């Protein structure tokens, strides 16, 4: 098997989910990484630690799915790749289907595991309420790997970094401006997430959520009503109509756990629920539950975390 993994490094660094995608690819076959942007060559060579043999770099910062798809198709053809891997994130969701239609190769979105012996790949379907086992009917396939599915294992090795030049064609999309999220840890990348809902009664009370997040090194998130009434920005909204996340730890305070909210977080490895109502449906999905007032529990938990961090 010959594998091509596309990773986005236009931010200037290699994201964790990109290392994970390389790791995933190297467990399927001999892996070449394709990327673009002006990232340090030595850093790209270090992708050898995650199983890459070779890294191809094209000198462009384009984010146009049409151009990126052209570039990835050209590299896949040049490398004779039969498996192409993208992260199932905002970029992967834009380019994965374009590559599939361009190469007439089956696309398997939302993969959460390696292919089994029959090349079936476990994926998330029905908003995390079920798994589908998907197989490509074509000789080439594209896999969209859900971030934080298999984790990252670091080994030894250096990848050989070479330039790649393919014709991107014209872009129909002009970027006018970019509004980046202020702050610390990106929700989609976060391993730990502290989230809160209407139970917090008002935006002025979010300090204790942020304090706990800071002590843990976690990102903050919120439920839909909280984003809809403007207490928190929309990009923090997790759930069926917001974003779906799968951190290692999801702490939910003052969120009842409607089915639409669960759809966005039920893939989290460990869920802690804090709610005054012992009948809150979220407790059914929780690993650890605290029946109590978030106004008391969150500061206490913050103290306990700080003590733990100080002693470990």
């Amino acid at each position, binding site marked *: 098997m010959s594998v091509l993994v596309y990773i986005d490094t236009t*931010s200037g660094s290699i994201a964790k989910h990109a290392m994970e995608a390389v790791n995933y690819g190297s467990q399927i076959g001999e892996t070449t990484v394709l990327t673009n942007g002006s990232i340090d060559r030595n850093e790209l060579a270090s992708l050898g630690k995650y199983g890459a043999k070779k890294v191809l770099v094209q000198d462009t910062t384009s*984010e146009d*799915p*049409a151009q990126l798809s052209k570039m990835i198709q050209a590299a896949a053809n040049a490398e004779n790749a039969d498996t192409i891997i993208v992260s199932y*994130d*905002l*970029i992967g*969701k*834009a380019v994965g*289907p*374009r*590559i*599939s*239609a361009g190469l007439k190769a*089956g*696309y398997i*979105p*939302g993969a959460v595991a390696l292919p089994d012996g029959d090349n*079936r790949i476990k994926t998330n*379907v*029905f*908003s995390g309420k*079920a*798994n*589908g*086992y*998907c*197989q490509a*009917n*074509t000789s080439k396939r594209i896999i969209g790997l859900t971030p934080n599915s298999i984790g990252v294992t670091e080994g030894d090795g250096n990848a050989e970094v070479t330039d790649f030049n393919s014709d991107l064609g014209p872009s*129909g*999309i002009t970027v*006018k*401006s*970019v*509004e*980046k999220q202020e702050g610390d840890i990106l929700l989609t990348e976060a391993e730990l997430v502290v989230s809160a809902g209407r139970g917090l009664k008002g935006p002025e009370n979010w300090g204790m959520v942020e304090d706990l997040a800071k002590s843990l090194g976690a990102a903050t998130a919120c439920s839909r009503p909280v984003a809809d009434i403007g207490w928190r920005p929309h*990009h923090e909204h997790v759930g069926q*109509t*917001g974003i*779906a996340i799968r951190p290692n*730890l999801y702490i939910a305070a003052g969120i009842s756990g409607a*089915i639409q909210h669960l759809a966005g977080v039920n893939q989290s490895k*460990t869920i802690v*629920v804090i709610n005054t109502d012992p009948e809150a449906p979220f407790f*059914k999905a*929780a*690993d*650890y*539950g*605290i*029946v109590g*007032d978030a106004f*008391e*529990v969150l500061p*206490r*938990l913050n103290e*306990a975390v700080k*003590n*733990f961090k100080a002693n470990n």
Partner: protein
Amino acid sequence: MKILVCISKSPDTTSKIAFTDNNTKFDESGVQYIVNPYDEWYALVRAIELKEQHGGEVTTITVGTPADDSIIRKALAIGADNAVRVNMEATDAYSVAFQISEYAKNENFDIVFTGKETINFNGAQLGGMISELMDVPYISIASKLEMNGNVATAHREIIGGVEVVEVNTPFVISAAKGMAEQRIPNMRGIMAARTKPLTVVEPVSCDPLVNYESFSLPDSKQECKYIEPGNMDELVELLHNEAKVI
């Protein structure tokens, strides 16, 4: 302005998810089908708003069987002008995208809308595939779209923020939250929908590229372990030693 909106059905968000035939088929018994929320709330409603502002026509397209006519009528009741149904059971996303692009390529649409994903397969595939097949720009997961003549300004989600982009028609756009607000059809809309044209076209031959061989339900969660609100040291200890997440 000529706008095409891709509409598919999905099980109601509160449906119980189960499978039959040795876990190879979604169990439809007792399931109420709705218009996929991203297609309806965001894509269709924004298309209708743009028509109201700038004039033109909104056509919906669905790849499906006569059983899908009820969700198509719902889209017409909300305000689409006419509808097309490609008469086949939808298989994989590629064959759906292929049928839609085959229909759309001779119709000179300015904008093709999809929802950002369906809530049953969560594949986020259709818009990207249609754009590649039609060789036009694709704005993926957009939360805003304004038109000025044939120039569109859109907000698309990027990792950790939003990007404002400009694109000329024709293009494909997938719609996410923020694009529009849900509209409830009124009685007049529902009556009018009965007589709006629903054209049935026959599919072009196309093999699916992928195949869902079987399904499973996630392992059931272990019982929730309760911790006294006064004992947060115990929770931290469990998160560290038992769950191993901190």
